[in-house]
């Protein structure tokens, strides 16, 4: 291990400009000719305002303390928050899970190799899944649990403002994909620790990334969507999508709104409306063609499935989930179906399951099973020849590893895409796209550069490997990524490395592939390169 990659636990509190830096030559090689440059500097004004002392990137904006008093305040607030984190009142949601990870980790590092960030960074110690956990654990045992002889038994760490600032930032060096937790022989969960640290900063210290909080969950609570679309704008936009795509596809359809007593309330990630309207249209076309009784809702937060609280804040999480369930109850629908958004799937279906009280217990399910049933039912006529190009399937972590929805989407692509090929590994063992836990929507300063170099590197490598028999610009290829955040990440990384042109790659959801193969729709629903 080279010296620059080796970071000691005690380094976290050191009076130094940076804890570490990932050198370009240490990055995991990609299959092909890819060039990465040195890190862009974090802008001066950011460095003056915020604590940028971890590495070459700044994600969480922790105000840089200017006086000893401010330094002390930062430490005290953090430790106060940490104490609350270990009480059942303030953290009933995750206390048991957190405590078990604190107590039973054997520090065996079996989880290390499963982490795509650790691998992509050339095994930089900071990215080892257990690194942040171990620091957090030592602080917990010494200052919160106050175990006798803790320094001797559990190892020591110096708690100063640098430790706090670095551990906060370090909580944002993880995709919370939980691949590491999947490989832990004990059942400990380093991903959870990253999220719990984010919670201390958000719930106690009022420090969260602006993309997730101020322009994310708060906008959703205020306007109904982090896109800032209120109900009038969102209905206008969808009307426009209906018209536009009815014309383009030659298939007349109308998206229903606020239909009381419909069987299904479909909730999209509203980001799709702006960035991928073809996804919204495809759902409407398929549901209409299959004769499904369904509706969208124009209630607050019920036309945007996002729930960024999942990434950083339990209170924001609960607020959003409750609003969505309330909307469904008001309409009297039989169930909520979630559109192609991974974190929204997990938030409302799985996590909210033990948060929603009895009157709001409306059944919730993923869109993939119903799409599979529609495709297999014979209600819609398909011509798989229209999808006769190489297709691979990205598995969003939240839908696969964390919800166990593996087969429905495969049944569909296997039926409709003659040249389907899996990535390796896939299904519950997939790798995160690199946008997970909120990064896909972050484009501040050099964050995108970090998403390309580190978090998205493994996924890019997997995609290229899946198409190893048809590389280059000769053949059109499609990456099916049925999740808005994953699509955002994949789009950005393709753009960065010019892969739309160099590899004739297109990306999109699953419903686009379905509509592309529908006989009743004009051919060419999916577009490549300049066709966009």
């Amino acid at each position, binding site marked *: 291990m080279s010296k620059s990659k080796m970071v000691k636990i005690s380094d976290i509190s050191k009076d130094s400009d940076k804890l570490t830096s990932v050198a370009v030559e240490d990055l995991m090689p990609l299959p092909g000719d890819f060039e990465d440059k040195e890190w862009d500097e974090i802008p001066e004004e950011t460095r003056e305002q915020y604590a940028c002392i971890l590495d070459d990137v700044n994600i969480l904006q922790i105000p840089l303390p200017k006086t000893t008093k401010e330094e002390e305040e930062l430490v005290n607030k953090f430790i106060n928050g940490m104490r609350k984190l270990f009480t059942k009142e303030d953290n*009933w949601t995750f206390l048991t899970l957190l405590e078990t990870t604190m107590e039973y980790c054997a520090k065996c590092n079996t989880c290390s190799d499963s982490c795509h960030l650790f691998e992509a960074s050339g095994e930089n110690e900071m990215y080892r899944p257990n690194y942040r956990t171990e620091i957090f654990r030592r602080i917990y045992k010494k200052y919160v649990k106050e175990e006798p002889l803790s320094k001797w038994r559990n190892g020591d760490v110096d708690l100063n403002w640098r430790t706090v600032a670095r551990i906060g930032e370090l909580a944002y060096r993880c995709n919370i994909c939980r691949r590491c937790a999947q490989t*832990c022989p004990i059942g400990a969960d380093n991903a959870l620790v990253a999220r719990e640290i984010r919670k201390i900063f958000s719930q106690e210290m009022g420090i969260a990334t602006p993309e997730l909080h101020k322009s994310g969950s708060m906008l959703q609570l*205020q306007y109904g969507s982090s896109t800032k679309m209120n*109900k009038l704008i969102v209905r206008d936009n969808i009307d426009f999508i209906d018209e536009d795509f009815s014309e383009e596809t030659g298939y007349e359809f109308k998206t229903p709104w606020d239909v009381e007593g419909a069987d299904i309330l479909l909730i999209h990630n509203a980001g799709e409306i702006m960035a991928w309207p073809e996804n919204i249209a495809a759902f409407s076309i398929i549901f209409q063609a299959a004769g499904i009784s369904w509706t969208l809702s124009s209630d*607050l937060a019920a036309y945007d499935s996002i729930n960024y609280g999942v990434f950083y804040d339990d209170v924001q999480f609960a607020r959003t989930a409750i609003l969505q369930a309330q909307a469904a109850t008001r309409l009297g629908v039989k169930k909520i179906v979630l559109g192609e958004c991974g974190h929204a799937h997990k938030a409302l279906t799985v996590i909210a399951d033990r948060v929603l009280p009895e009157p709001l217990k409306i059944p919730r399910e993923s869109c993939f099973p119903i799409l599979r049933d529609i495709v297999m039912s014979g209600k819609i006529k398909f011509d798989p020849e229209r999808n006769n190009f190489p297709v691979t399937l990205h598995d969003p972590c939240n839908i696969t590893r964390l919800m166990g929805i593996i087969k429905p989407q495969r049944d569909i692509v296997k039926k409709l895409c003659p040249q389907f090929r899996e990535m390796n590994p896939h299904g519950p063992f997939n790798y995160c796209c690199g946008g997970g836990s909120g990064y896909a929507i972050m484009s501040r300063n050099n964050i995108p550069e970090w998403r390309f170099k580190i978090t998205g590197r493994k996924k890019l490598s997997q995609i290229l490997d899946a198409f190893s028999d048809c590389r280059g610009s000769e053949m059109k290829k499609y990456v099916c990524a049925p999740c808005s955040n994953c699509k955002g990440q994949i789009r950005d990384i393709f753009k960065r490395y010019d892969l739309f042109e160099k590899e004739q790659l297109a990306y999109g959801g699953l419903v686009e592939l379905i509509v592309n193969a529908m006989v009743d729709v004009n051919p060419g629903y999916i577009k490549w390169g300049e066709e966009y």
Partner: protein
Amino acid sequence: MSQAVYLIAYLAIIVFISAVIKRIVHYIRSPLHVRWEIYPVAHDSKRASYGGGYLEEVDWWKKERNVSLIGELKVMIPEILFLKTVWENNRPLWYITYPFHLGLYLTIAFFALLIIGAIAQLSGVAAGPKVPLLMSTVMALTNLIGPVGFILAIIGAAGLIYKRLTNPGLRNYSTFSHFFNLILFIVTMGIAILTWLFIDPTFILARAFIVNLISFNISQINSSLFLLQVLLAVLTIAYIPLTHMSHFFMKYFLYHDIRWGDEPNINTPETDKKIGVVLNYPVSWSAPHIAGHGKETWAEVATFNPVAEPETGKEKVDE
């Protein structure tokens, strides 16, 4: 001195049992936690093979779940017996940690056989010149399994110390207690081997000690080496559940309740009741979007929207 050792042995057993119970009770009594499962979920008999779950079905709440204990055992048994996850994800460590764990398993089996032998002796089954075949097998196995277990544990523990010292990745996370624990095993097992070699080659003394423990017969122990062995063994037994090594039984909960905890809140009034309890817990988080709005419980905080109310009001007027 002998009396003191017996007393310590009883105390150690009490500490062991209380510490195990305390950890389990603490876990069971902890509040409801949210679902946080990871697939494959082993008990889904229909889908675990490819990592799927019941959420793959339309209207999943109307359908039977396939919860199979066999499915869990199919994962748990190789995991416990062979440390399968380490084999798959950390092979270099497995070659060292497996002998260590196998050594401990054999030592546990050795204790179990000793106890069986002791009970047989107390009940008269193993007394007299004609020992039944089953009992002589138990005794032969005790004689074999004990020393093999001690040796494997020593080799594994020494290997782990070496690995923790020389592998920079592991070194970073290895604390004094790791080395202390491993050395404790080496010393305890080492003394056990010496006792076996020089004092108690067929574990007659060991079995007699257990017979005495069970029957509260505090009799004299003449060998100081044997005394030392008993002392180290019981202290190690008492020490294990006080440390992270308690993962050997807590792993059940981490797997069964967390990793595979996919039970949905459908027809589970017990869960609804628990949700009612936790939603009434007070919230003391201080960030501005949570505190300062006069909302005290989770239910109040979670149903309060700090920013939207005026906006929705306006929208209603607009319409």
